[in-house]
């Protein structure tokens, strides 16, 4: 309270490097986890739509359970299980002993959570594709992979993109949760700055501002991408 504006500005200046490094880590983490999440989501959506009874059920249980439990709890559970589990899995698959770093664990944890939501977005988008397009591809004897790549993904994109953009913003915000398990990103950087300067209000607001810039820029980019993808598609209102 006795701090002058000048003092606040110079202190923020001193810590701006740490905040920036944190923001870059948050972005890196979010981008990688987003890709992991989209892949998991796509596989899950495919399993729910075209899988056998077992695959269908596994995917349903995964998407339902993960969306019903708090993200923070999942992150705690997966983080503590995560590193041990991933090492065991890789050993089982015959990749030998691998070193798992905190970044990889965090990405996988966030990706698993993201995948459950992405699966729902993709399932909805695939269901919105007119049946005739898929039937036509079948008539031309498209192999499954080509069908996915050439027909289904392009046709579902206009419907999926708003949902994906929404998930991306949620992911950027949820990535702050990994600061709770000690991974250093933007919020951890702000916490370190706040703790050592005792300027809690200032630094948490600064972190909030950076998150806000990230989400606002993301929303704007999503609008541009959406307009591009809709261009030429025959979605109503496109």
């Amino acid at each position: 309270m006795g701090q002058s504006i000048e003092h606040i500005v110079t202190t923020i200046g001193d810590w701006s490097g740490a905040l920036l490094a944190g923001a870059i880590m948050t972005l890196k983490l979010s981008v990688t986890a987003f890709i992991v999440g989209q892949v998991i989501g796509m596989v899950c959506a495919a399993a729910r739509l075209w899988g056998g009874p077992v695959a269908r059920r596994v995917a349903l249980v995964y998407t339902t359970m993960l969306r019903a439990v708090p993200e923070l709890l999942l992150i705690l559970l997966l983080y503590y299980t995560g590193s041990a589990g991933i090492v065991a899995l890789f050993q089982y698959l015959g990749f030998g002993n691998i070193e798992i770093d905190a970044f990889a664990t965090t990405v996988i944890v966030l990706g698993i959570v993201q995948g459950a939501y992405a699966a729902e977005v993709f399932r909805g988008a695939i269901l919105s594709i007119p049946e005739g397009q898929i039937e036509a591809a079948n008539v031309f004897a498209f192999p499954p992979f080509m069908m996915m790549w050439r027909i289904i993904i392009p046709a579902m994109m206009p419907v999926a993109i708003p949902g994906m953009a929404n998930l991306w913003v949620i992911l950027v915000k949820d990535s702050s949760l990994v600061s709770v398990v000690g991974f250093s990103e933007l919020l951890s950087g702000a916490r370190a700055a706040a703790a050592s300067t005792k300027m809690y209000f200032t630094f948490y607001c600064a972190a909030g501002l950076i998150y806000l810039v990230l989400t606002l820029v993301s929303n704007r980019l999503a609008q541009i991408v959406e307009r591009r993808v809709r261009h030429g598609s025959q979605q109503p209102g496109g």
Partner: protein
Amino acid sequence: MDFSWVDKYWPLFVQGLWCTVLLLVISATFGFLLAILVAVARISRFRMLRVISGSFTTVIRGTPLLVQIYIVYYGVGTLLAGTPGIRTSLLWPYLRDGFWYVALSLTISVAAYDGELLRGGLLSVPKGEIEAARGFGMSRWLILRRIWLPAAIRMLLPNLLSDCVLLLKSTALASTVAVVDLVGAANRVRSDTFLVYEPLLAIAVVYLLFSGLLALLGARADARVARR
């Protein structure tokens, strides 16, 4: 898997569940009331109100809830603690407890998210209903209270209830500021007994059942809305 701690710690979990329920009910109730104000301000005739409520929604929805909780708890909390005389006041025991800070943050968050939802709902109520009410000579306030809001809320009931599941999940963040909610209870068992998975898995089941219950209510509301 070792569940021998349950005998000793179950009262803590009941207390944690109660705390989670309280957070959910308090923030859902007050958040919804605030959301109505936000939604009405967003479609107001006055530009100033639209700008303020619009920026509020953008800022709250664009930043992580955890950051908001930290700003309220550490930021505002520290400012309050520095205020002379407050430590000896009757309110201090409440001001020290993280619970009310989390409840406040969650309420603000609900106000922003549900406010946005309600704005959409208000705008999609058929114009004719409102014109008819105006034709009867009802005042703007009466129209809002008797016709416009009820119609919007009825339409949005399933969405509002599914937002309750999101809110339930958000209450877990209370544990980050030392509130003993369900996750806080599990954390305490973990630090006391060094068991990691068992307490976390146990509360995961509780959250699953709780979300399931809310989803069931949502499905019921869905069916009721469809019948009309």
